[in-house]
């Protein structure tokens, strides 16, 4: 809100021209590296590669043909080249929703531990962060060994689950490996948020007789919320693009196929039209989720809610100070 007002003021000052001039290199760069490929992809998604084969020489006859929205239609009806779209769509959604939900809970727990650790702080923080530091492909290979038919996972649970075969266990394997790797990311960002909370607020709560649980729900969580929301948003967008983990861990199993994998697979078959269509659908899906998340849940990505948060703080303080805790 405040930036809008600010912009309006700037216009009044007649500095609009200068601002536009100063911004133009950035805008040009964005148009070049984001806008241009995006437009090309959308255009490509309306074409299909040539596949007329000459019956005597076996040589492909024609180039790309314009097919309108056929690629999208194929995807949404899961027919022809679009087979597997809904499977991949629901996999992507499942990995995102379930994965990020669990990561958030674990991440916050990790942050609380890291913030409270009195001894060996460095060691605890480092050990929690190790999974995040390992490249996904490497961690996927590692989990592949763990989830081997005769691997450690089966050794520990004492029965042979074939993790890398089709079925729910394969989805579980992806989720476990993903959560292991990315919960520390949420933990790290949340920790940064926790450290900005004023110690005095906790002292005030203690004076008011709040127990640990109440302190967490009424103070820690509301105050860390802006940071946490950004962390969760980034993880959501990241999880929706998931590619390397299921690709390495499960290969071509349907149970692990995500939208990114479908796009890569279509491109590898030189079906660039279909690949672009998948990429565009995924892009729109991600945009939709991002908009819903920012609008609906108030994730503060660009920092314009700073004022709001600052205003909100004293109010929340007052509620606790007034002692209306249950």
């Amino acid at each position, binding site marked *: 809100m405040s930036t809008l007002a600010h912009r309006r003021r700037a216009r009044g000052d007649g500095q609009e021209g200068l601002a536009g001039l100063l911004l133009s290199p950035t805008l040009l760069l964005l148009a070049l590296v984001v806008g241009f490929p995006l437009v090309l992809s959308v255009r490509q998604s309306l074409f299909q590669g040539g596949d007329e084969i000459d019956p005597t020489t076996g040589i492909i006859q024609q180039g790309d043909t314009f097919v309108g929205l056929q690629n999208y239609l194929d995807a949404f009806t899961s027919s022809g080249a679009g087979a597997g779209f809904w499977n991949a769509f629901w996999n992507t959604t499942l990995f995102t929703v379930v994965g990020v939900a669990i990561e958030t809970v674990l991440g916050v727990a990790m942050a609380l531990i890291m913030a409270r650790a009195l001894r060996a702080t460095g060691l605890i923080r480092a050990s929690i962060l190790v999974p995040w530091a390992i490249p996904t492909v490497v961690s996927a*290979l590692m989990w592949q060994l763990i989830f081997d038919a005769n691997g450690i996972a089966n050794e520990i649970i004492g029965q042979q689950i074939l993790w890398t075969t089709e079925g729910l266990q394969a989805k579980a394997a992806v989720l476990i490996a993903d959560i292991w790797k990315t919960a520390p990311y949420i933990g790290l960002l949340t920790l940064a948020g926790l450290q900005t909370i004023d110690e005095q607020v906790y002292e005030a709560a203690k004076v008011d007789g709040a127990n640990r649980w109440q302190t967490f729900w009424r103070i820690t969580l509301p105050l860390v919320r802006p940071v946490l929301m950004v962390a969760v948003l980034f993880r959501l967008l990241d999880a929706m693009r998931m590619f390397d983990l299921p*690709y390495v861990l499960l290969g071509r199993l349907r149970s692990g196929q995500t939208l990114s994998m479908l796009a890569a697979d279509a491109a*590898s078959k030189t079906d660039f039209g279909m690949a672009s269509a998948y990429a565009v659908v995924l892009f729109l899906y991600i945009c939709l989720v991002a908009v819903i998340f920012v609008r609906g849940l108030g994730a503060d990505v660009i920092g314009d809610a700073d004022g709001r948060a600052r205003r909100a703080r004293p109010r929340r303080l007052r509620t606790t100070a007034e002692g209306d805790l249950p």
Partner: protein
Amino acid sequence: MTRSLPLTTRRSALAVGGLAAAAAGLAACSSGGDSGSSDGGGTSIDLEERGPITLARGKDTTGALADFLSRWNDDHPDEQVTLIELPESADDQRSQFISNAQAKSDSYTVLGLDVVWTAEFAANQWVVALPEDTFDLDALIPATVTTGTYFDKLYAVPFTTNAQLLFSRKDLLEEAGYDQPPATFEEMWEIVAKVQEKHPEINGFGSQYAKYEGLTCQLTDVVASAGGEIFDAEGAPHADSAEATTALQTLRDGFDQGHIPQEALTYKEEESRQAFQDGKLIFLQNWPYVWDHFQNDDGSSQVVDKVQVSLVPAVAGEGTSTIGGANYAISAFAKNKGTAVDFIAFMTALEQQKAWMIETATPTATAAVYEDAEVAKTFEFLDTLKSAIDKGVSRPQVVKYGDVTQAIQEAAYSCISGEAEAADALAQLQEQLTGLVES
């Protein structure tokens, strides 16, 4: 490339890092979208066109290639060949070849192609038809020449080849009273049952049944040994034939009756090798590279001197293996194709083929090397290997190989994992394959 099957390996580099990046990549790939049109560099080769060339192929993990190239370069000072090493993964090599072809770049001259890519590269005219009389094709094993041929024209000359073999636990077989490895699945099940009476903890038969390229190899070879074929010589699919159904049902029975362990559904080459090497399998079907691992006496192998080699098990009659290997082709957009032809002839000549086989332990495509005494010293089961390659079958030679192999894997996997019945899975496969070759 002997053991790395296409389309299976890690593609870390291609991980879709950011959507904008992915979109940019797709847009870039599409810029040469009409490469299928007839300006694909012509189909005839001017043999007089000479000069420096390049050889683009997967990373040479053997380290032997440099010697071969410098031998050529010493004799041809004006027609030097430079090696361009592509990634180790077959998938990555293929995508580099394709982007290079779509950009119509002349930077790759001779291409090292996996045996299953011939049709796609030929149909798109990314590689040129080769003058057959320039190469001594009669000296090559016919089954390997088939892999380089598309619509009766030669597009790629076989350099290396490969075939799977059956590795049996000699000690367990002898103990159970058998002195010969089994020729058919039926005989094998009988032996498994007998051996397991005494050793219930040892699994029966293992091969590559995970859902990846290896599974296409498995189905191709059992269908062939049952007397069927997934595609006929004219390129029409016959996936739902009675022979194919019998073949797939044989594998399914193996799983249902416990002769093939359930965990074989997770086996690729390495997993199955490890299981056999740890003494957990009586029989293993795999590529010849596993032999050295089994004979390794540093303690990593439980089966040293206990392994016997024979042809892969058959549904009926004699076992047929899928052919692997690498062929050499010439890019349609390259300069100095005349030199390239000579270079390929040089690499596939007997002398080089023999040296390559001895130095790298990779089977080569020339028939005469299998008669050679020096080669026999390095390969303990040379005769069996030769006869496996002779009887070998090609995987489907179709333009849309990527789609076809995935459809085959899907059908075979759904049946052996108990999700679908053989006849239903294959009927559906037939429908898909028909659509793929017609469209």
